[in-house]
Every structure is written in structure tokens, then in C-alpha cells.
């Protein structure tokens, strides 16, 4: 049992950790592919802004036309504290939540997130950003993975950890849906070209840490439908929508006491999962990706609202 306020901090701590890792991955992999010739021609930084839900604010604060400049977009999405979506703001928000649940976090977990926060705010992070961008994104990614691992291996398996993990898997479903949606849109907006598309699909897989798992699962066969199916339905890939929802349901099951609240959240998640499973490979082929991802993003938001009402004192 947890105080609802504490559970709320745990939930959001989990979401911010996942969001920071995902943002670092997406920014890093987009930058790398933009350095190649294929991507530059048909892909721009705009989808990354859209995936972060920052289209309007970017237009207002920076100017729409600047969206084609990789450095401007990266600077905004990493450093700008005027938006809560920037990497810097996300790391700070994660650390602020962690500070409110210090008694539940292990010392090592706290040191890890606090250390990252201090580094981000120091000149060292700026210097690494200037000198080795690849290394910069890699460090943030690894910090978040390390934090997740530290929590798993040093913390009591209690509700605090369950709420952190619940926040993380819901955020993951949200991020995978967003990244899939914008990449899919960018790739299919022109007439398809096989070689080019393969390179772009591989870029999408990298943005979701899915390159090697996908290749292993599909023995090297790359196709747009295959990638979409993998990211949506693969039950064993920890970043697929299905896996994320399965995992969220398992967390809610573990948290909920039989007589206590939670039925609403459980039902909502189960409905979304059932809806998702009705998509087979054939339906994904019919270009219904956008419909699917939009629905998932909306409903994940809805589930989070129900979780807040059931457990978090909203």
C-alpha cells in the first residue's frame, strides 16, 4: 500500500525515465541517419518535433521554417527549458519526482538519477554535446538503462516499484506509437522505393532499439509491414505496443487489491489490448497504421487518466 501522492510521483518518475531514454534514442538515431544520403532527401527533423508533441510550441518559440535545421531542432529538444518536453527538462522532472520518493528509492538509484541531473546542468554536458554528440546521446541512454537496472536489482518488489514500472511501460507504449506514426508517415508520403525504404525502416528500428531483435525474429527479412507488425504485435519485444500493454496489465494486477479500486484501469487497458490484437498483419498492410497509432496514443492517455483516478488521488 502506498500514499496516493507517493504513487503519483512513482508513476511519473517511471514515465520521465522512459521518456528521456526514448528521446535520446530518437534524437541520436535521427541525427545518424540524417548524416547519410538517403534520409536527407526525404526525411526531415519535423517528424521528430511532431512525435514529441511540440509542433505548435516550436512554431511559436523558434519558428516553423527552422524545423529543417537539425542543429536548431536538437538544441530545442535537448536544452530548451521553456518546454517540458526537452531532454533537459525531462531529466530534471525525473529527478524532482525522485526527490519526493527518496525514501522508497534505493540509495544507488537516487545517486544515479541525481548524478545525471547534475551532469546535465553542468558545463561538462555542454562540452560533450559540442565535442561528441554521438557520445552525448549514448550517455543519456545508458544512464537511464543503468537506473532501470539498479532499481530492479536493489529495490524491494513493492508497490513503489510497481508504479514506477507501470509509468515506464505506459510511456513506452506512447513513445513507440508516436515514433511509428511519424516515421510511417514520412516513409509512405512519396511513392515507395524499395532500397531507400529499407534504409528508412532500419532507421525506425534503431530509434526503438529494435534493429537486432527484429533481424533475429525475421532472419534478416526487412519490409515495411514486417517492421510495423513487429513494433505493434510482437509479444516478445519489450518495446512493442503489445508487450507494453501486457506488461501494464500485469503491473495493475499486481498493484490492485481485490476489494480496492482499479477495476476501471484494468478494464480500460484490457479493452485497448483486445482492440490491438484484432489487427493482424493483413490489416496493417492496408495502411491503417496512422489510425492504429492515433487510437493507441489517445487510449494510453485515457488509461493514464483512469489510473490517476483509481490510484493516484486525482
Amino acid at each position, binding site marked *: 500500500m502506498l500514499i496516493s501522492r507517493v504513487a503519483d510521483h512513482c508513476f511519473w518518475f517511471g514515465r520521465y525515465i522512459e521518456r528521456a531514454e526514448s528521446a535520446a534514442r530518437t534524437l541520436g538515431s535521427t541525427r545518424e541517419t540524417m*548524416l*547519410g*544520403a538517403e534520409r*536527407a532527401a526525404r526525411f526531415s527533423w519535423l517528424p521528430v518535433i511532431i512525435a514529441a508533441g511540440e509542433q505548435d510550441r516550436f512554431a511559436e518559440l523558434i519558428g516553423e521554417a527552422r524545423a529543417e535545421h537539425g542543429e536548431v531542432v536538437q538544441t530545442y529538444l535537448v536544452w530548451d527549458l521553456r518546454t517540458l518536453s526537452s531532454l533537459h527538462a525531462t531529466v530534471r522532472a525525473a529527478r524532482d519526482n525522485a526527490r519526493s520518493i527518496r525514501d522508497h528509492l534505493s540509495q544507488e538509484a537516487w545517486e544515479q538519477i541525481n548524478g545525471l541531473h547534475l551532469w546535465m546542468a553542468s558545463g561538462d554536458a555542454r562540452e560533450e554535446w559540442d565535442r561528441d554528440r554521438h557520445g552525448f546521446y549514448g550517455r543519456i541512454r545508458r544512464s537511464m538503462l543503468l537506473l532501470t537496472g539498479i532499481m530492479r536489482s536493489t529495490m524491494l518488489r513493492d508497490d513503489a516499484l510497481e508504479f514506477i514500472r507501470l509509468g515506464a511501460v505506459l510511456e513506452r507504449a506512447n513513445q513507440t506509437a508516436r515514433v511509428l506514426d511519424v516515421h510511417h508517415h514520412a516513409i509512405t508520403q512519396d511513392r515507395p522505393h524499395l*532500397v531507400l525504404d529499407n534504409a528508412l525502416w532500419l532507421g525506425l528500428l534503431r530509434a526503438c532499439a529494435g534493429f537486432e531483435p527484429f*533481424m533475429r525474429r*525475421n*532472419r534478416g527479412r*526487412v519490409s515495411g509491414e514486417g517492421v510495423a507488425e513487429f513494433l505493434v504485435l510482437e509479444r516478445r519485444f519489450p518495446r512493442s505496443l503489445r508487450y507494453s500493454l501486457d506488461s501494464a496489465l500485469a503491473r495493475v494486477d499486481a498493484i490492485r487489491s481485490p476489494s480496492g479500486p482499479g477495476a476501471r484501469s484494468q478494464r480500460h487497458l484490457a479493452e485497448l489490448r483486445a482492440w490491438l490484437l484484432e489487427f493482424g498483419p493483413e490489416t496493417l498492410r492496408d495502411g491503417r497504421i496512422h489510425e492504429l497509432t492515433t487510437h493507441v496514443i489517445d487510449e494510453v492517455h485515457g488509461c493514464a487518466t483512469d489510473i490517476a483516478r483509481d490510484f493516484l488521488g486525482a
Partner: protein
Amino acid sequence: MAQTQSQSQSQSQAGSGSGANVFADYQPLANTYDELYLPGVGSQPSRPRPNVAKLLEPLVRMGADELAHRSELAHLSLLNQGVTFSVYSDSAGVEKVFPMCPIPRIITANEWDTLERGLVQRTRALELFLADIYGDQAILANPKIPADIILGSEAYMPKLRGIDPPAGVRIHVGGIDLIRDGEGVFRVLEDNLRCPSGVSYVLENRVVTKRVFPELARRCRVRGVDTYPARLADALRSVGPSGSGSDCLSVVLTPGVHNSAYFEHTFLARMMGVMLVEAADLFVDDDKVFAKTTQGPKRVHSIYRRTDESYLDPEMFRPESMLGVPGIMRAYAKGNVALANAPGNGIADDKAVYPLVPEFIRYYLDEEPILAQVPTYLCARPDDLAYVLDHLDELVVKMVDQAGGYGMLMGPQATKAERDEYAIQVRAEPRKFIAQPRIELSTTPTWIPGKARVEPRRVDLRPYIVSSPEGPWVLCGGLTRVALVEGSYVVNSSQGGGSKDTWVLEDDDPDEPEAGRTLIEERAEEC
């Protein structure tokens, strides 16, 4: 906006750096084609070739400290990625990083276009030659083709005659080594059709150069290399025995963890998502190949073998071999498993057969060869033999069944006594020798850490060609090997060679505004 401006300032400072400008006194070698620089004329200093001058701007302006930092970053990257090769020694294999010069080797879109067509043409002809020589042998009726040279070669395997490989492909992966002569003309130096290695460095080097030279990569618009594993996986699947279809199980067969190219074997298996197996993991039953798995035996349809063919099957090749899979050649002969590359390919990349390849292209394709070769004298031919003996002081003479520089005479550097003695050997067994003029391999600017400056070093290029039943496909790029030792012509890693990333430009003369931007704008755009 304000942030972006301060960004551009700090970066342009980082860019010029401290320390001397590394290109300040760069001077191409005499009589040698430098790929990026024109030699100085009179009082005029050397300068970048006009077609790449604008692209190179960020590099040319770089200070020694900055380049040293990036070179160090490249080395660390390779070490962390685990991109190593094993060095055989008394104890267990020692792992070393294959030295990499971070300055990329650049090939323009125009140059590449010709190379690509030439490589496809050559691969098609070699594929047809192999099908013919292990089939009807129609070409031997051609008076321009000396049958005894081909059939007498140790690389020709009469046991394989009449065996058709699945889907008719033999050269699933080809590596055709190219050099550029003193005039800059690309020439084929040799074909590698058995088990060409090195492609993992091509992919890993690209990860590194994007990391250490992002501003340059962006400016140059480099064609991608990362679809290679998917292409190879497709090719392996496409030659699976009939009926295997989408269930086709491909594996990579490695000699094991102590093999010098073990890293590459794991890399390719990982990138293609297929199993990495050793010979002991496979067995043959009912002339079909199976892998021993936790779920029992699983039928294997397609094997990318990175083992030497003489160790493939003790039943057929070396009875004493412990490395092989007994019976695998029976399975292959029945069409039950694809072997990539096909056994027997050695006859097509034999040194004595090499001079005949242009004739193969004319014979099988009725086309003129697109790629030049190095003029080669076959001592088995009386006219050639006479010429070689007369011109030993100008020629490099090689033994056909030796590699790696063994049994070779470097005529221009040898003493008269050495030449006379060598001539006796050549006269005794002329068919064992070929001769070629020494080519002044092209150079490209290379970072020399010990001197903290950039100097010209000689390079070659190994492009990779993947073939499926639909024909050959050429990876845009390839492995550039560089002779890091001053004055050296030898690019082998065992003799002081290193590698470079090979950048094939998307477009030589991009008319997009990006190409015309100033350096400061560029730096502000991309770190």
C-alpha cells in the same frame, strides 16, 4: 535563436583548434595520383582538387589538436564496439583493433557509376565462366583461351563438375580488389570469389566516421552502407533449395572463436539475425543438413560459410580435417543445401586465370570490359615468357599458387644477381609464373598520429558484390585499405596496413542550397 548563435561561435573555435593546420604543407608524391589533392606547380602550393575542394573545407581547416582528438575518438569507438581481429601467436589469439585512419576516402558519384557497372559486368561474366567450366566447358573451344592453364590449375576441382548449385548462384559474395594507377584509372588487381572478408569494417567504420566527422558526412551526402546485412540475408534466402520458401533457415558457419575474422562472423550473424554455427553444430542425415538445437534437429537450407572449402567436408576434401561436416557435399550435390560461396570458385580468381577475364567478358556477354586490369604476362605463353625474361628489371613477377608476397620478384628493386637467379626458376617452370608492371598505387590524405600531420599514403579498394538469382548488387562503398608505413605499397593488415571508411558521394555537384553554405553556417547546423 540566441542559443544557436552562441553554438556556432563555440564550434567554429573548436573547429580551427590550436596547433598547426594539418594540411598546410601537404604534398602529393611524384608520378602518383593523389585522390584529393593536386600537386603544387612552380611557386603555387598544392591544393584540393576542384570537385572536392568545397566538401573538404572543414577538414582542410582543421588544426592538428582537433584532428588528433578525433582520431583518438575513432580508436576508442572501435575498441568499445569490439571491432577487433585476432592475431595468431603462441598462446591464445590476442585481439587487436584494425588501425583506422579517420579521414575518409572519397569516391565521386561519377567514378562510382562506372565502377558499379564494371563490377556488375565482371561478376556476371565470372559467374557464367564458373557455370561453364563446371559444366559443358564450351569456352575451352575458344582459341584465345588456353585450356591447359585452366584445367591444370590446382584451384580447378574436377570432382565438382556437373554439380549445379541451388538457384544457379556461385558467387554469392564477391570482393574485387581495385587500385588506381598513376593517371587515376581504376584497375582490377584481383578477384576474391571464395571467402572475401572485411565487410564488417565497412559498416563499423561508417558508424565511426559519422561520429567523428559529422559535419563532413553531412556536407558530402554519403551513400549508405547499412542495408548490406539485409541484402545478404535476402540473397541467402533466395538460393535456398526449392520448397524452403519463407521457412528457409540460413546460418553463418565459422571456424570458431580463434579465427582471425571471428568478429566479422558474429557481426554478420547478429546483423542478419541468423544463427552462428560451428561445424560440430551441424550434421548430415539423409543427405540433408541439420543443426543441433535445443528443440532437436532443425533443417538448414542455406549456409554462409566462412570456412575454407578444403575443410568443408572430410568425405570429399581433406580426410584428416576435424573442422568439416561429413556428408555436407553430398547434400550440396543433391541440391538440398546452398553453400555460399560455392566450392570450386577458386578457379575463377586464380592468378593465372585473371588475365583471361576480359576475354570471358567478351565471350559470355559479348561486351567490352568496362574496368581496366593490370597488364599481365602469362609465362606459360612463349611470347610473354620472352618479354618477361627481357624486362625483369621493370616487372613484378609472382608465382600463381602463392599469395601474400611470397615467391615474388620486385624487379625494379632487385639486384642483377637476384634477377638472374629468378630467371632460371622461371625458365624451368614457366607456367608457374606471371608478371606485371609495378603500379604506382594512388594516394589519399592520411592522418599520421606519430607526426601529428597529414601525409599521402597508398590505398586500394575492395568493393563487395552480393549476387542472388536476379543478378549482382554492389554495396555503395567498400573497404579501403591503406599502407600506413611511409613509402609502402603493401596494404595488408599484417604488414602495417590500416583501413579507411569509403565515402561514395550521392551527387557530385549538388545544386541544393546546402552545398553552397559557408563553413560557419554549416557548423551551426550540425555538430
